[in-house]
């Protein structure tokens, strides 16, 4: 596709449930990033992949959060035992090299609401 695609665009789940959020990066982009954004705040870094491996997962808040990118393209962010505090917009971005050196392209995000 032409841009970064995230699905679903909205997700409502009950507290304690498991959710998966998907990100399709721009074709050929080796770097992929997950952020989450709460209302009125800037995006908060979660994890960064270079190819299939997580180059930096220091932003994952706890072990309920996990992300994979098995073939170096599509990535899935997985949240176990969701809590109301997990409610936020989850943003995915990709870039052709290290994001710190070049432009990052963002998807439209998945708005997660935990009730």
């Amino acid at each position: 596709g032409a841009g970064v695609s995230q699905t679903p665009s909205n997700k409502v789940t009950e507290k304690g449930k498991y959710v998966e959020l998907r990100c399709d990066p721009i074709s050929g982009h080796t770097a992929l990033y997950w952020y989450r954004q709460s209302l009125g705040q800037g995006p908060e870094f979660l994890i960064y992949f270079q190819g299939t491996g997580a180059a930096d997962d220091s932003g994952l808040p706890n072990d309920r959060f996990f992300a994979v990118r098995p073939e170096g393209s599509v990535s899935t962010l997985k949240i176990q035992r969701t809590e109301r505090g997990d409610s936020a917009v989850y943003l995915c971005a990709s870039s052709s090299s290290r994001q710190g050196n070049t432009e990052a392209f963002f998807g439209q995000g998945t708005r997660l609401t935990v009730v």
Partner: protein
Amino acid sequence: SQQGEEDPQALSIQEGENATMNCSYKTSINNLQWYRQNSGRGLVHLILIRSNEREKHSGRLRVTLDTSKKSSSLLITASRAADTASYFCATPHGGSQGNLIFGKGTKLSVKP
């Protein structure tokens, strides 16, 4: 943690006026980027300025960088209602320099 801090948090101007937003950061950087976000969803890259550059232009945007003060400014000239959005600065983080840390943003409102 957030590296950059934008100032002001909110700015309201009339169409045609210039808008200036500032960003301060804490650690040494090799570049600083500005992004725009409409309606709390996807961010759009506006401009990247490297640490050896002092000023950069792109259309109606002018970005300055002062590494001695660890600050940057974004100027939008001749603003339009369509410029209404949140604007964020972002800087590379950590040893890998592989990801960006964003500030809290400036919410710009341009009234027609």
